[in-house]
């Protein structure tokens, strides 16, 4: 399984190399087996490694790098030979510490950068979202205020309308007062009519009562009774005369 994985990885790594450099392409054509591919990769890797080491040295050109390296080595040799710098157990500790810190830096740099970038990107997203929300809020407020751009004319119209309404209310109040006055006058007149009617009715009743009373008193008189009796007799006589 490990061999298979290694073969696949090597085949994957050789593919771009074969297309990029004629030398590797030649190697790929010459050696068909996976073992030969591995050899081709081994030919390429030390060059890269050497280049990376040379690139890691301070200086811009190959000449300056060589110069710096030579001066550094000479200085180190001078310091050690003159016992300005004494190599002892602290040097071992120094090398180990620098080595450890280098390894930690190499291992931890990329994950930390990713973490920091992710965190900062998260903050950027929060800021951008907040800015968008703020812009949207400001825009909605602007739109809301823009709807009130004719506010002067609207206010004048509303003021005119309120004046008309006040006038109408005044008229309504006046009319209501008139209606109320009319109703009051009508009720007073009605009560007066009722009073007059009652008064007339009472007078007529009293008149009828007095007439009846007078008639009764007259009828109670003997002269009247005799006169009535005589008149009745005379009428009876007339009737009987007619029949006869």
């Amino acid at each position, binding site marked *: 399984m490990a061999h298979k994985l290694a073969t696949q990885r090597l085949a994957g790594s050789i593919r771009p190399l074969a297309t990029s450099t004629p030398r590797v392409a030649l190697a790929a054509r010459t050696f068909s087996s996976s073992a030969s591919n591995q050899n081709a990769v081994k030919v390429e890797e030390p060059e890269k490694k050497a280049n990376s080491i040379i690139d890691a040295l301070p200086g811009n050109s190959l000449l300056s790098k060589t110069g710096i390296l030579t001066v550094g080595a000479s200085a180190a040799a001078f310091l050690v030979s003159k016992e300005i710098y004494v190599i*002892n*157990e*602290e*040097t*071992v*500790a*120094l*090398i*180990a*510490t620098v*080595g*450890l810190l280098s*390894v*930690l830096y190499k291992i931890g740099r990329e994950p*930390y*950068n990713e973490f*920091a970038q992710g*965190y*900062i990107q998260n*903050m*950027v997203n929060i*800021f951008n979202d907040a800015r968008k929300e703020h812009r949207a809020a400001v825009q909605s407020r602007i739109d809301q205020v823009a709807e009130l751009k004719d506010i002067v004319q609207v206010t004048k119209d509303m003021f005119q309308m309120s004046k008309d309404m006040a006038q109408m209310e005044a008229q309504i109040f006046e009319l209501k007062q008139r209606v109320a006055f009319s109703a009051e006058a009508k009720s007073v007149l009605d009560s007066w009519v009722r009073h007059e009617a009652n008064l007339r009715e009472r007078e007529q009743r009293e008149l009828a009562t007095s007439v009846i009373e007078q008639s009764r008193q007259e009828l109670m008189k003997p002269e009247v009774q005799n006169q009535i009796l005589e008149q009745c007799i005379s009428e009876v006589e007339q009737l009987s005369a007619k029949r006869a």
Partner: protein
Amino acid sequence: MQIITIKNPLEQFEILDLFSISTSLLGYRFVLTNLGLYIIIITVLSCCISIWITSENNKLLLHSYGSLIQESIYATILQMVKNQIGSSNEKYLPLIFTLFIFILFNNLTGMIPYSFTPTSHLEFLLILFITPILRNYSNNSSVDNNNIYSINLSIAVFIGVTIIGLKIHKLTFFSLFIPTGTPLGLIPLLVAIETISYTARAISLGLRLGCNIIAVQLNLYRILSGFIYKFMVKSPIFFIISLIPMLLFTAIIGLELAVAFIQAIVFVILTSSYIRDSIYLH
């Protein structure tokens, strides 16, 4: 005949006089030691780094990578303070954070070759903070009080915690020494035990840190590097073979790095715990 000189492993822990001021004040002579110098350097360095990282944020809208580390440490310590002392007592956060940064910088300084580790000195953590900076000699007696510097800081914490407890609870604070439900007959015994237990915190807090740092510095770091160096200089073959223990030694320095962080965290966790005990008693 090859002469091999073996240095005393404790040589690195020696406190040397760098600068002294003679004064007639009470017959004392004030001396600036290497320990005091390192503490001054570490204090200035930690303050400068913190201020530099924080001031960078004044110019930036987003975090710089450096401030992200500091904020992560701050968030961790804040969470620890909330868990240990409670959210209502976040006023102790500056103390705990400062202690953590100070101890961490002290521990990490010991990892730098040719340097000096103040926290490996028990006296530093035991007695009052100012003493290692300006060490005094009474009647010109050169009392060698090395290796007890470490507990300076823990005694300061102990005194501070006791003052907090007395200020909050007045005399009720002493109920800390009588566990609830103790039978009357056992009270004298338990009070004695609890008093010893409480007082031992002052020693144990600094002793734990100091011993760990001494163990790493002395046993793992210095002695191992001495052995490897002796092995390397014997012959070219031994030099090549010694690359294997060199890898192990590098891993051990990684362990020292972890111990530096862990011990700083342990110190502040225990300090928080002691503060909580003083605030809430039982």
